[in-house]
């Protein structure tokens, strides 16, 4: 087997090994070293609890709420981030004018606003969606702004030398050359969106996986707590994988997408 093939297979071998090692050390710490099960439940206990919870209807209701918040918030963030990024990218003086405000907005810890959002939008999904949008749209907007500015000069010359209309230039040049930036922003944005929804649920409300974490904590159910975290990790990975897969379909020509011929 040649090196390149091996290199590509490596993660598929190393990841299960690391996972088994991790679980092994964890189990060892619990059963041999004897860490209290209230501090660290054994992986087996967490597994049992996870299976139990997956069987309960209420768990799925929480999953549905969190997923809805993330998907809606992320969707709005993509639209708003792309539009604002495109506008600021195109209109240089406007970007300059709002630059200080943008920096201020970026450095303020948005999570601190959750109580305010709760006052304004209540304990339901809306306040979480607002936080999700605010966290997720920023990286998307910045990337799109950068993308609009980085349309290749040589490519512009081609369109100009062909006497291209504004619309055709947008369709055949500006949009496709900005798409990789939109996806780069979306890959960060989806992670932030999950964080936004969970933190929002931690701090207010009675629904969602974030709320479930707090509820398990309050009933000193450490195994349950870990099980919810596993669910959150799975949800986050799934959503990220969806964005990455979409990217593969939409911009198969881009360097960040390995061509199937090479894979």
């Amino acid at each position, binding site marked *: 087997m040649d090196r390149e093939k091996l290199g590509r297979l490596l993660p598929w071998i190393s990841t299960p090994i690391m996972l088994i090692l991790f679980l092994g050390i964890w189990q060892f710490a619990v059963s041999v070293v004897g860490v209290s099960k209230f501090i660290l439940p054994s992986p087996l206990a967490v597994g049992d609890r996870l299976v139990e919870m997956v069987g309960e209807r209420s768990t799925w209701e929480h999953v549905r709420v969190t997923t809805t918040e993330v998907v809606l918030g992320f969707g709005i963030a993509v639209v708003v981030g792309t539009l604002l990024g495109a506008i600021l990218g195109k209109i240089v003086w406007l970007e300059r004018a709002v630059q200080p405000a943008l920096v201020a907005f970026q450095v303020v810890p948005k999570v601190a606003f959750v109580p305010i959002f709760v006052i304004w939008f209540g304990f339901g999904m809306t306040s979480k969606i607002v936080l999700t949008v605010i966290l997720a749209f920023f990286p998307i907007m910045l990337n799109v702004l950068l993308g609009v500015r980085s349309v290749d000069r040589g490519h512009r010359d*081609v369109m*100009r030398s062909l006497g291209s*209309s504004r619309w055709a230039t947008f369709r*055949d040049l500006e949009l496709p*050359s900005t798409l990789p930036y939109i996806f780069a922003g979306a890959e960060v944005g989806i992670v932030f969106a999950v964080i936004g929804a969970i933190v929002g649920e931690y701090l207010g409300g009675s629904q969602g996986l974030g709320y479930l974490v707090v509820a398990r904590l309050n009933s000193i159910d450490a195994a349950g707590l870990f099980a919810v975290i596993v669910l959150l990790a799975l949800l986050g990975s799934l959503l990220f994988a969806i964005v990455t897969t979409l990217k593969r379909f939409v911009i198969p*020509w*881009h360097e960040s997408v390995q061509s199937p011929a090479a894979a």
Partner: protein
Amino acid sequence: MTPDTPLRDAAASAPMAPGAEIGAGTLPVPAPRPDANQSAELQLVDVNKIYQARTGPVEALKNINLTIGRGEFVSLVGRSGCGKTTLLRILSGLLPPTSGSVTANGESIWRGTRRDDQALKQFGFVFQEANLFPWFTIAENIALPLKLRGVAKKQRLARAEELCAQVGLTGFEGSYPRELSGGMRQRAAIARALSYNPSILLMDEPFGALDALTRDRMNLELQSIHAAAGATVVFVTHSIPEAVFLADRVVLLSPRPGRIRSVTSVPLARPRSLETESTPQFQDIVRELRRQLDEED
């Protein structure tokens, strides 16, 4: 080596990447256009160009007067920075001159500082970089000008296939630009410029980034394309032998400010082959142009 089969000779003598570049028997000669002998005429009268750079004004071109006949092949040579690109961009309507007039077929390509898109329809531009769009396949890239002109998809892709055959890219229609070598990408760029049968072809150091062997072969191909299509060609290069090899006339520019130093006719018979370069006549012209260039220092 027979002069009328330059491509095959070149291909036989040049090592190629396996499966790449030109396949055996590829003919890079497009069908002659029906109006082949009515190619347009270009004229620059008292053209000046001053750039407003941060460090102050830069006189890029000063008093350029040049008339280029129909079907003529003119090479522009000169050191880098002497205004070759500027001149070509002004000719192509990408850049307005500070003063002076630019006409194609007697019609100004500038209306004030707005260019006349109608006059530009007859221009084909090949840039120093291939400038292919990475999101389009080779065929889609070649067909882009036709898409912008509203040609139906089926027809324009058929035309792209035809052009691929002409420039030796058969089999790569569906590839993305990143999957091609530099030489192949430049061929695609040339095919794109040829797609709508422009009567004036403007080329800015199109082979500058290629290795010497590929470059020789591209020069032979360009000669055949010029002969078959009968287009007027303005070709920028900083290689004197390349300029002489291709041109009917060589225009030498000197820098700061960019002006025309000399215009030299190249009365060598066509079609020219690689052996033309070893004739005394060819070498005399090259030597004379080198001497003029050296005088500048």
